[in-house]
């Protein structure tokens, strides 16, 4: 921990805002279910308490009350469990998770579920931009609307948005599926490599190399299954969009091989 000049501002060279935080041990555990109030806790205290309950106490059902839109909550949870956030999360909520089923009763800020590997996240409210960025697996369901660049660099899994989506949705998508029941902004699927996008409303404009796709039985089965699982009623009629593969200019040779040949 170092001090900058004569100011009272201190910083940790590793970049940790609270390097010496401890789990507050304030959760109440009853019948294998834990509940704690995050109102007066810092980001690290909330995450440390969550990890203590999940990894040390072996609890697999945790309710976090009053998260207060704080950033970076519920990140890096790598075990199968159930977590309920009673309120909204800020930026980077539930990123890097592998396994949990998470229910957020409020909204999420930018970059929620970034790099999610598996599990389920259900957001009752809206989501900011970059939702599900670089997501690799699992289901992310947003019952409100999502911001710009949802599923940027998506590599797997499903992002299901009940409301509208902003500009550059599925930008550089590489695999996986996006289902948007509402309207979508400009640049849908820009520079996508692969994957499928389903849109129930209007599309302001398609991005470079994103083209309408041919609907088949597997699309119907997928949409109906997801709507049934998440209790979303009857699905609307969707248009399907895929990669036109006109930007595929890959060399068959690795750079090192190329040097040898040329």
């Amino acid at each position, binding site marked *: 921990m170092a001090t900058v000049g004569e100011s009272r501002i201190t910083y940790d060279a590793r970049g940790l805002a609270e390097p010496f935080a401890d789990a507050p041990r304030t959760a109440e555990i009853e019948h294998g279910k834990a509940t704690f109030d995050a109102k007066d806790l810092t980001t690290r205290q909330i995450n440390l308490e969550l990890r203590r309950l999940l990894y040390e106490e072996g609890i697999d059902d945790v309710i976090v009350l009053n998260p207060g839109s704080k950033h970076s909550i519920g990140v890096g949870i790598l075990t199968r469990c159930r977590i309920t956030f009673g*309120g*909204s999360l800020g930026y980077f909520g539930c990123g890097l998770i592998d396994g949990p089923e998470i229910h957020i009763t409020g909204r999420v800020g930018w970059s929620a579920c970034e790099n999610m590997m598996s599990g389920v996240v259900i957001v009752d409210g809206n989501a*900011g*931009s970059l939702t599900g960025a670089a997501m690799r697996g699992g289901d992310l369901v947003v019952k409100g*609307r999502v911001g*710009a660049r949802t599923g940027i660099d998506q590599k797997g899994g499903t992002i299901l948005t009940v409301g509208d989506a*902003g*500009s550059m949705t599925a930008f550089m998508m590489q695999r996986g599926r996006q289902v948007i029941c509402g309207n979508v902004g*400009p640049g849908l699927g820009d520079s996508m490599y692969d994957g499928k996008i389903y849109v129930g409303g209007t599309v302001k404009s398609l991005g470079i190399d994103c083209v309408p796709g041919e609907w088949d039985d597997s699309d119907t089965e997928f949409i109906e299954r997801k709507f049934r699982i998440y209790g979303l009623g009857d699905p609307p009629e969707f248009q399907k969009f895929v990669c036109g593969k006109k930007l595929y200019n890959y060399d068959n040779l690795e750079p090192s091989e190329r040097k040898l040949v040329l």
Partner: protein
Amino acid sequence: MLSLGHSLEIVKDLGDAEEVAEQYDLKDFNGTHAIGHVRMATESDVDISGAHPYWAYPFTDVAVVHNGQLTNYFQWKRRLERSGHRFQSECDSEIIAVYLAEKMSEGASLEDAMNDSLEELDGVFTYIAVTADALGVCKDEMAAKPLVLYESDAIVALASEEIAIRAVVEHEVDTYDPYEGEVMVWQR
């Protein structure tokens, strides 16, 4: 930046929000609308001249806070200087205040001027502008910078992140992020 009913008043200093608020007794200010900004300096120095809000000198009662970068800053600076305007800083955000003020002095409404800025200002931006009786927000066509909006019967609150709104509203709030190219203006 606060409107005291008839005109705007500006407070700028170095320090965090709490320190500056305490130093200037901001809790004793009364008004209908206010904007504030904590700057992370990227291009120009950490000093008061680089601090937002920017006032549109020599116009009265037009001020702006801005998150982003304007890539045609020098073009607009030269254009506005040729029209006789002088700038107080080297910061691109100051352009927006003078740009809007000049448009309004030619008869445009705040909303019209902000809509024009979507076409004429290049780069990425979310900015909030205030006049003595209005508050407006403008988000560029890429939606590159964050903005969270909360509207109730009692207040309109805008911030880069919901946690800032929760600092003044105790209960859970229903907020959303406006989309690309949106201009919204609230009139007193």
